[in-house]
């Protein structure tokens, strides 16, 4: 499919190429201005020297990257030892984002499937319901979540009242709370692309599979999942990448033990205590990781097509 589309656009490019470039110009300008320049700025900052009350001194230095990976003693004069703190935070972030992605997938896939199965107008209603939370600012939603799962919050009160538990479950400041926050923040990013690909799925294929003696499970695994895979992968990327850099959910719902990359970076730029070059360096490391992942994925895709 993708191959056919590429071919098509290639054969058309002779006629449309000129006007297409003109039409793309505003987009290119916006992307260039608001995406590339800030990233370049960060890249430059990460190689500068820190100013003690925030900000930078325009002097080349590798200190930021050095600090990320190595410990050189309190005064910076000891031989370098590999430093686990920040790498550990990164590792935990990847783990958290991965888990959030899996939870979103487990809940998001059936949800998307359910919506795609509705008829006409019902579909739009369900999609609308999914997007409603997005009309409220993420900060406010995350704070509400915090109130909801507090030790004496409505959720615990309700469980106590139901008699399901004898004492409040401690949820706030745990991994569970962070997971819940990430899950709640990014679930629609999983649902919508999967919905789009299920919508396009040709259900005659399921009938054909059943006709050829496939059980429900085999039909799901061998026919449906490969067909909606692009949607699943898009959904996973759309959940994983922002979860990795998220700082609201870990800040508000998690404690010191659930500190994630996003919070680490945020802290470096906040108030007077920060370290801009270090924050920039951490951002660049995060960005390289994400880019490496996406490039790997794109490579795999193009391999499959050819």
């Amino acid at each position, binding site marked *: *499919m993708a191959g*056919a589309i590429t071919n098509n656009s290639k054969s058309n490019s002779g006629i449309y190429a000129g006007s297409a470039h003109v039409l793309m110009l505003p987009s290119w300008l916006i992307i260039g201005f608001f995406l590339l320049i800030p990233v370049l700025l960060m890249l430059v900052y990460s190689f500068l020297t820190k100013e003690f009350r925030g900000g930078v001194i325009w002097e080349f230095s590798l200190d930021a990257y050095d600090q990320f990976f190595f410990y050189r003693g309190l005064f910076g004069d000891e031989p370098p030892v590999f430093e686990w703190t920040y790498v550990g935070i990164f590792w935990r972030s990847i783990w958290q984002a991965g888990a959030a992605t899996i939870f979103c997938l487990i809940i998001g896939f059936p949800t998307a499937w359910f919506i795609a199965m509705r008829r006409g107008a019902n579909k739009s209603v369900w999609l609308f319901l999914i997007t409603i939370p997005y009309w409220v600012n993420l900060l406010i939603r995350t704070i509400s979540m915090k109130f909801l799962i507090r030790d004496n919050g409505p959720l615990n009160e309700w469980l106590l009242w139901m008699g399901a538990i004898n004492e409040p479950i401690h949820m706030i400041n745990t991994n569970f709370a962070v997971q819940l926050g990430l899950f709640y923040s990014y679930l629609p990013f999983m649902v919508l692309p999967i919905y789009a690909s299920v919508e396009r799925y*040709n259900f*005659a*294929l399921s*009938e*054909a*599979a*059943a*006709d*050829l*003696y*496939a*059980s429900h499970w*085999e039909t799901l695994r*061998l*026919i449906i999942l*490969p*067909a909606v895979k692009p949607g699943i992968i898009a959904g996973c990327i759309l959940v994983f990448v922002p979860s990795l850099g998220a700082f609201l959910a870990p800040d508000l719902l998690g404690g010191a033990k659930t500190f994630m990359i996003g919070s680490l970076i945020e802290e470096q730029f906040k108030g007077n205590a920060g370290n801009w070059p270090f924050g920039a360096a951490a951002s660049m490391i995060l960005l390289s990781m994400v880019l490496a992942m996406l490039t790997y994925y794109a490579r795999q895709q193009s391999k499959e097509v050819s």
Partner: protein
Amino acid sequence: MATDVQVKDIAIDIRSVSKLFGDFVALDKVSLGIRDNEFFTLLGPSGCGKTTLLRTIAGFEDVSAGEIVLYGKDIASLPPNKRPVNTVFQQYALFPHMDVMQNVKFGLLRQGVDEVEATKRVSEVLELVQLNQFANRLPSQMSGGQQQRVALARALAPKPKVLLLDEPLSALDLKLRQAVRLELQQIQNETGITFVFVTHDQEEALTMSDRIAVINDGQVQQVGTAEEIYEAPKNKFVADFIGETNLIDVKVKSVSGGKASCILPGGAAINCSAADGAKAGDGHLSIRPERVALVSPTKGTFVGTVTRQIYLGTDMHVDVQLDDSETVKVRVQNSKVAKIPEIGTKAGLNFDSDAARLLVD
């Protein structure tokens, strides 16, 4: 319908199957006995319920009432993957992410056939549909006709007892369709699988089938060989739907022993064959255009004016308007072109009494 068939010969016995979609009756007490090794065709206009009937046999639709018995076993409650029946879908429904080999192998692997055995069987069926060199192509890289044959191979591979084909040729152009028709018949002969073939194309039905069931509005109108259905249509619908015919309103004087005597609109009496169940009173006579002869006005039983001539290649189609305003369609072979009277001139019409047939309304 199935009473004239020995029970042991029946592959699929459909016993008063009804299917309702809400209030809408898609199948109305359909009873059919499809014989073993038979090329059986379901023929009818769009929306008459052909696909619905096929889908109930395959198990994609539950029946609202009735039984479907496959080789003596009631299968109405079995899910599709438990029925020894395979389908060639109208839109092929090939798995787009699998190559031809994997598509054809799919059913075999689900049945638990081992990889080596399955691969062997796949090349057998690909040989049968002449697609050996395409084993590693994706469906999207093949023409419509090739995809159709992949769909056929995929359905044949697990050696089903019955193969269901839902208008498998409708997406093909005329030349390809004719080629694939022959191929299908050949494959049916070679494999001995019972084919249930759906089409709304009467020519396809007449040329390919051992027997045909003509369906309209969810009801079986007539079951029989191509010849029986064409030469001895039972009712007005069948006579009109299969081939071209002249339907003439007549007064029926008497019916007995498959013969009837009727009064034509002009007042002339005629003896003709009668379908089972035809009654005295008002009735319809069917006369095929090619059974009507054009003669000079003085020699004709009927006389009329030629109003239209259509050149059809091998044949010529002529409309003759009788004096009492009925128009009779006549079909003559083009070798006799010289004798066809000009438009506007008088012409006589003759036909044998066995060319006319009294129908059930």
